[in-house]
């Protein structure tokens, strides 16, 4: 599978996750988000950027429970809870936000 962004063809796996992490850009993120029916706001970007930083530091995409806890620690309890994160990313904050962030699917996610 692949997606088209700005005239470039980017390879994805069968679920739409980017194969090459280095293909990612904000433009690519917007394109993936559009396909997921997610309208990116500042709050969405905050989570996506957080995920990219997390990946950069630990070389994995966090499980949703870990993400929720880490977001709470960094951005406060009003954002570090399932309700807030699922409202932003209805198909799962880890799963869907990781896809938009150009990261692999979190380990342990089915």
């Amino acid at each position, binding site marked *: 599978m692949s997606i088209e962004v700005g005239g470039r063809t980017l390879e994805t796996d069968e679920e739409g996750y980017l194969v090459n992490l280095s293909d990612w850009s904000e433009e690519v993120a917007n394109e993936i988000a559009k396909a997921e029916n997610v309208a990116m706001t500042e709050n969405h970007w905050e989570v996506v950027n957080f995920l990219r930083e997390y990946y950069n530091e630990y*070389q994995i995409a966090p499980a949703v429970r870990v993400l929720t806890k880490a977001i709470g620690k960094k951005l406060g309890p009003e954002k570090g809870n399932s309700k807030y994160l699922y409202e932003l990313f209805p198909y799962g904050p880890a799963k869907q936000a990781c896809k938009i962030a150009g990261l692999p699917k979190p380990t342990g996610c089915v």
Partner: protein
Amino acid sequence: MTDTRDEIDAEEGAGVVKKFMFVNRKAPYGTIYALESLEVVLISAAFDQDVSLAFLDDGVYQLVKGQDTKAIEVKNFSPTYRALEGYDVEKLYVERESLAARGLTEDDLLVPVQVVSAAEMAELMEAQDVVIGF
């Protein structure tokens, strides 16, 4: 759907909790064992199990600081051990004899661990419900 998510989370957490120990004996690269072990550990932790890790023999090299895998063209996954704390996996046991035999000390490791003797390690294994070797 006010608080339902959190209630579901709480219910899921109420399942059976077993004591799992993952025993790592191999060097981090050259075989897939270390990486596979780490993945299983992360999955077990996501299911709220009581997870501990043991590092013996060449397995102690998995935790050594400053790993550089550029020359062998594989991913350096050692930073992921530092993520374990966020998964509430905080019981990392390293066998003293294995460290000593390789000229390593606790200061050479990239995460906080408990260094235990071979005899203590045997007791820890005895206390588990499940011991899985990699």
